[in-house]
């Protein structure tokens, strides 16, 4: 079957007799124009500008009925929310048609923020300030960059894996996920660039890391994937970016980590608030929460185990200790980081109404 005709003629594109008559009439000046006089659209919309900023997504949702987001999407096509739909629109086969499955109360403002706070890994990093490092420091930085590039691959794939399954009624979520994909693309770009920019190169891809990433990919629902990706995985990576202050050999790496940190915090914020919305609006919240707890029981060790692999944790310690000779003091810093990571993760879970204290098997103290 040919989906797109290579030789489009009038008869090819006329769907039916009515369309054929319409096309015939065009040449005689018989316009349709029913769309011009249709009284069904909610006409007169005028979203308010945010002074000095522009027209935000959030502002367009203040306009009725366009900002009215139903708990269950009324259709399954790509018709924009609030428009008039003709009969017979095809269903796109979306899996996520309920608001609780995808929504977060902060998603509109996070999208506006994401668009406003984009940056450029080519131009905004002072690459010309890179300086030669001792071999152990360069190798450690390159190994960390390799791992982070690897991690960002799943973070860039993840939004794409799920976004197309979401009903267009919740377009704000899809827009935000598109910004996440762009953020993560930039992150993997910047860490790959760092590995190749200073006389080093890429290091080792650890089996433990790859298994963790495969687990995120294998999540069988968006909420499980989002919890594992946004709350658990990115929450940990957020703290690593933050720790760039004592991991960075030069101001170049510091700038990289700080810029990535800002982006990562948006993703974590969405994930936390989505988890909250999901649990508060699920038709069977008790069962949903228990199922998620069981999932988290299995997911937490998989993700935290990444930070026990030698090729992951030792480069951090070498960087923190400013060389392999300082690896012992570096490990002290990494132990403090571990405590911070676990505590912030548990606090975000609490914020979402998903209390993992007392249930999380990952110790608050580092296992090394």
């Amino acid at each position, binding site marked *: 079957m040919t989906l797109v005709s290579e030789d489009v003629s009038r008869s090819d594109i006329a769907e039916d007799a009515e369309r054929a008559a319409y096309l015939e009439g065009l040449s005689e000046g018989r316009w349709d124009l029913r769309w011009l006089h249709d009284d069904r659209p909610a006409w007169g919309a005028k979203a308010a500008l*945010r002074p000095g900023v522009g027209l935000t997504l959030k502002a367009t949702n203040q306009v009725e009925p366009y900002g009215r987001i139903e708990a269950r999407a009324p259709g399954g096509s790509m018709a924009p929310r609030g428009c008039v739909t003709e009969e017979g629109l095809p269903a796109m086969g979306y899996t996520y048609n309920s608001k609780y499955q995808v929504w977060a109360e902060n998603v509109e403002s996070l999208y506006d*923020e994401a668009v*406003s706070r984009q940056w450029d890994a080519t131009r905004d990093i002072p690459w010309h300030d890179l300086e030669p490092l001792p071999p152990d420091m360069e190798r450690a930085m390159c190994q960390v960059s390799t791992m982070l590039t690897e991690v960002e691959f799943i973070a860039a794939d993840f939004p794409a894996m799920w976004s197309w399954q979401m009903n267009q009624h919740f377009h704000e979520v899809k827009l935000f996920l598109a910004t996440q994909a762009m953020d993560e693309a930039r992150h993997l770009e910047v860490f790959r660039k760092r590995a190749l920019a200073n006389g080093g190169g890429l290091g080792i891809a650890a089996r433990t890391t790859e298994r963790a990433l495969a687990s995120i990919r294998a999540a069988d629902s968006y909420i499980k994937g989002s919890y594992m990706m946004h709350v658990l995985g990115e929450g940990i990576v957020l703290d690593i970016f933050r*720790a760039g202050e*004592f991991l960075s050999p030069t101001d170049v790496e510091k700038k990289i980590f*700080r810029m990535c*940190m800002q982006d990562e*915090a948006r993703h974590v914020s969405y994930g936390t608030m989505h988890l909250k919305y999901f649990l508060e609006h699920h038709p069977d919240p008790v069962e949903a929460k228990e199922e998620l707890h069981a999932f988290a029981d299995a997911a937490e060790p998989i993700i935290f185990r990444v930070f026990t692999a030698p090729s992951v944790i030792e480069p951090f310690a070498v960087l923190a200790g400013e060389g392999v000779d300082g690896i012992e003091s570096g490990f002290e810093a990494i132990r*403090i980081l571990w405590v911070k990571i676990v505590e912030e993760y548990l606090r975000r879970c609490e914020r979402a109404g998903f209390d993992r204290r007392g249930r999380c098997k990952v110790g608050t103290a580092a296992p090394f």
Partner: protein
Amino acid sequence: MTNFPSLTSLEELAAAMNTDEERFAKLGVVDCKVGISVTDTGEGFTVEFERYGVAQVTEGVGQAEFVLEADSDVWQAMYHDIVAHGSASRDQTLNYLALPGIAMTIRSDDQLAEDLFYRYNQTLQSFFDSAGSFSSVVAAQAV
């Protein structure tokens, strides 16, 4: 502006930020209320960031979404470093000082509110780094 942080000094930084919209617009929109607490004196201020600038600076930290807490000597050292170098040195950035066990604490009952510090970090740092431009003014006046 040696008494830092104070209502006056923070208002001066706010004025500097508000007159440099182009630079801050490049960093992106910012919406948060940041508390600044001087632990040994009990003083506190809230800087309300909005759009690409500061909407207002008030006394007290009650309305803040998260609070940056440090002793006065830590705030002073940060300020003088910025003035001396034009922007914060590597060990005087907010992000560095607020690492566990260094000199500053980020306090919030809500982890997501605390995460605002991460989301807007570069804007917040640039706000304080504005003090660096004052040094050149002072230096120029001295000459």
